């Protein structure tokens, strides 16, 4: 006895544990939402490469992001318009190479990337090791200026990070000294400025490079790559804004490429250009999680219901709620102690109510069962055998359903059409059982049980149409394991039913008066 009890509990707890574990994995790692209708921000970044071909063979190489930190890639596609496309990776770079034997005039190539915020579930590869650069030599007087600045910075810094920061503060100072003035003099734009800083850092033998990325923010069509200074501190790369000295990657900053390789290199063209456009949009979290898991090669999501065709998905959206209804029945019968016509009849009725809506469903149920009962009483007079009589009741139920549908179609009440979804065999059985109870225990008992069944069916409907519940079951079908575990535990519940506290109340009364 005790052994079996323990066995059931262990199995149940295992099931519940596995179910909840899988669920929490999906919430934490894959970002699936616990609530329905949650939205998240996504960006679509488009890089448009325009090439002005001279008419001969054309080749273009565009650097594209590779596992950008702080983002999760949802989707990536290329529009190549007749060009052959190869995506290659080497070292830290990833690039799209387009090639065409013969191209004339203006050519447009597109690279599109859909992203959302979040840490990529696939661990980013190890950051490329930096080699310590040889000490740079500069032309004079530039060299003296750099050395003077570096010496000043060195005195006021403790490590590579603080060195870089101090250097950037000095170089960007509002009141620059003459050395800084000299250095600043020859820089053209932000990108060039960042490059110059890496040269200066080389003077202190600090490995550094220029990274380029997009500040995503709101939608716009003229996004530009912004430079970022990356410094290697011996363990990892640290990012600085070359213009302000601010440490770290800015918010919503999409790292596009790092290093000296040019963003776009094209051969056989007179002119080439890259333009960036950013579109910000809001999408449902489930959708986003599915895409992102697809990119992260998550087996768990590939085996999920989200990978099924939509119409099959909709079937499972309903089917997955049936165990919830069954669980409700178990609770109502074994814990509360309600009695109903047929064990799972109310679950099926509840499912039918999903389509008809509650009030219309109840009205149609009452009408069908009521009229069905009248016919059943008439059949009783004819003294038919059981199976033919059941078949006759079933036929009458179907006829009534046809009549309801036709009448409601004529009167323009669309609700009535969904009566066709009622489980007619179940209805016929309800009518049969009810007429027997009516005959043997009186109309009162029959009505009590009938109303009881209807109440349970309505509760089942409410439980099975609950948006949160339906969302949870569909996105986390492993919760069925939890349901199973609870059912096992309830299966070994040997305590009193709620109805028994009423039923045996006289025992306690007797014990009070009989001390």
């Amino acid at each position, binding site marked *: 006895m005790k052994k079996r009890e323990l066995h059931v509990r262990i199995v149940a707890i295992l099931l519940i544990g596995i179910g909840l574990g899988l669920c929490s994995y999906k919430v934490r790692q894959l970002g699936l939402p616990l609530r329905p209708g949650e939205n998240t921000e996504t960006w679509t970044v488009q890089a448009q490469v325009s090439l002005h071909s001279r008419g001969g063979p054309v080749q273009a190489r565009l650097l594209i992001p590779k596992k950008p930190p702080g983002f999760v890639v949802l989707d990536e596609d290329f529009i190549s318009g007749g060009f052959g496309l190869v995506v290659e990776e080497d070292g830290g770079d990833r690039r799209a190479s387009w090639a065409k034997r013969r191209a004339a005039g203006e050519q447009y190539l597109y690279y599109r990337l859909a992203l959302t915020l979040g840490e990529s579930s696939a661990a980013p590869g190890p950051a490329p090791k930096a080699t310590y650069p040889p000490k740079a030599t500069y032309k004079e007087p530039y060299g003296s200026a750099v050395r003077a600045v570096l010496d000043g910075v060195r005195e006021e810094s403790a490590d590579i990070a603080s060195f870089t920061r101090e250097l950037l503060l000095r170089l960007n100072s509002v009141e620059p000294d003459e050395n800084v003035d000299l250095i600043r003099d020859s820089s053209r734009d932000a990108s060039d400025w960042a490059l110059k800083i890496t040269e200066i850092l080389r003077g202190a033998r600090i490995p550094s490079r220029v990274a380029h990325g997009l500040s995503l923010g709101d939608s716009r069509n003229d996004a530009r790559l912004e430079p970022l200074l990356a410094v290697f501190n011996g363990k990892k790369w640290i990012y600085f804004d070359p213009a302000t000295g601010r440490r770290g990657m800015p918010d919503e900053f999409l790292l596009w490429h790092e290093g000296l390789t040019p963003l776009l290199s094209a051969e056989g063209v007179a002119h080439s250009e890259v333009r960036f456009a950013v579109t910000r949009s809001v999408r449902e979290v489930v959708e986003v999680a599915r895409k992102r898991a697809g990119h992260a090669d998550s087996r768990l999501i590939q085996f999920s219901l989200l990978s099924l065709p939509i119409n099959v998905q909709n079937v499972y959206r309903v089917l997955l709620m049936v165990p919830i209804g069954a669980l409700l029945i178990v609770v109502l019968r074994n814990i509360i102690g309600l009695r109903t016509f047929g064990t799972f009849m109310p679950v099926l009725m509840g499912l039918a109510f999903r389509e008809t809506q509650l009030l219309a469903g109840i009205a149609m149920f009452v009408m069908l069962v009521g009229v069905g009962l009248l016919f059943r009483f008439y059949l009783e007079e004819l003294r038919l055998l*059981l199976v033919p009589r059941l078949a006759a009741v079933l036929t009458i139920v179907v006829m009534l359903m046809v009549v309801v549908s036709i009448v409601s179609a004529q009167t323009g009440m669309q609700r009535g059409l969904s009566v066709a979804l009622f489980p007619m065999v179940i209805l016929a059985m309800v009518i049969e059982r009810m007429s027997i109870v009516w005959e043997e225990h009186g109309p009162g008992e029959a009505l009590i049980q009938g109303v009881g069944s209807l109440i349970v069916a309505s509760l089942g409907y409410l439980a099975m149409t609950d948006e949160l519940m339906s969302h949870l079951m569909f996105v986390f079908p492993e919760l069925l394991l939890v349901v199973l575990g609870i059912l096992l535990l309830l299966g070994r519940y*040997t305590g009193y039913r709620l109805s028994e506290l*009423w039923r*045996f109340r006289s025992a306690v009364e007797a*014990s*009070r008066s009989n001390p």
Partner: protein
Amino acid sequence: MMFAWPSELRRLGVMGMNERNGNFVMAYNRRRNYPLVDDKLQTKRLAQEHGIAVPELYGVVSIQHEARNVGAIVQDHDSFVLKPAHGAGGEGILVVADRRGDFYQLSNGTMVTEEALQYHCTRIVSGLFSLGGLPDKALVEYMVRFNPVFEKVSYQGVPDIRVIVFRGMPVAAMVRLPTQASDGKANLHQGALGAGVDLVNGCTTFGVTGNNLAEVHPDTGATISGIAIPHWSDILEVSARCADLVGLGYLGVDVVLDRDLGPLVLELNARPGLNVQLANRVGLLAGLHEIEKIDTVPESIEDRLSLAKEIAERVSVPFH
């Protein structure tokens, strides 16, 4: 007071439905032995083979067209009972008490034709009263002439005695007395009165109708307590033997007391109800747990009965 607290019921040793099913019925009754009690024809034959008295079987209607034989089966009998072999909860039982010309008089006084009896047989055979609607058999058997001992506390029909037997030892008993509400049927669900019986001396104790305690019969007004049941030790013995017969650890044995034939086993029940607790004002759990503790139940019926009485004496303190 509206409700009983679970802790109070626990203290009184009252057993609930879930506990009965989980810890007694499922734990002590093997499913393969169920047909022996669920099919009253099998029970009857098994009992007869082992010399246990049962109401005489007049005939069986096992297929539809045999229903027309009902008249022939009962032609030598003025009174008889028609009942389903797989009936549950006393449903589908028709008691014919007398015959007036071509009409049969039911125990509640209604007159019916032979055709009605035939229809009732076909209803039984088609499985209307059996669990799951499976095809059934209709039994035609001797109508018990009940012992006058219960005359004052029953309204028509036949009172029967239900003994709960656990591991072959009686733990509790009650008399089920028909009332007007139960339409002469001795079934508590249908409104019959349950009267507890002291296992040791065979005297009725308290009563229960529905779930309410009762002191007097609702129709006759007679006091329920203090009726000494004749053949009490025979009833206990027969109950214990029935348990051996069908090999069920937790069993309800229904016995009727015939005026002339003494105790007759009517039917057995693998899931006996719980109202015996209210009828006796004693929870079942104390006795059941005492018997559960016994390592080996004595082989001989006599030893078993004396042990059962000893335990009953120890635990049977009315709700206190």
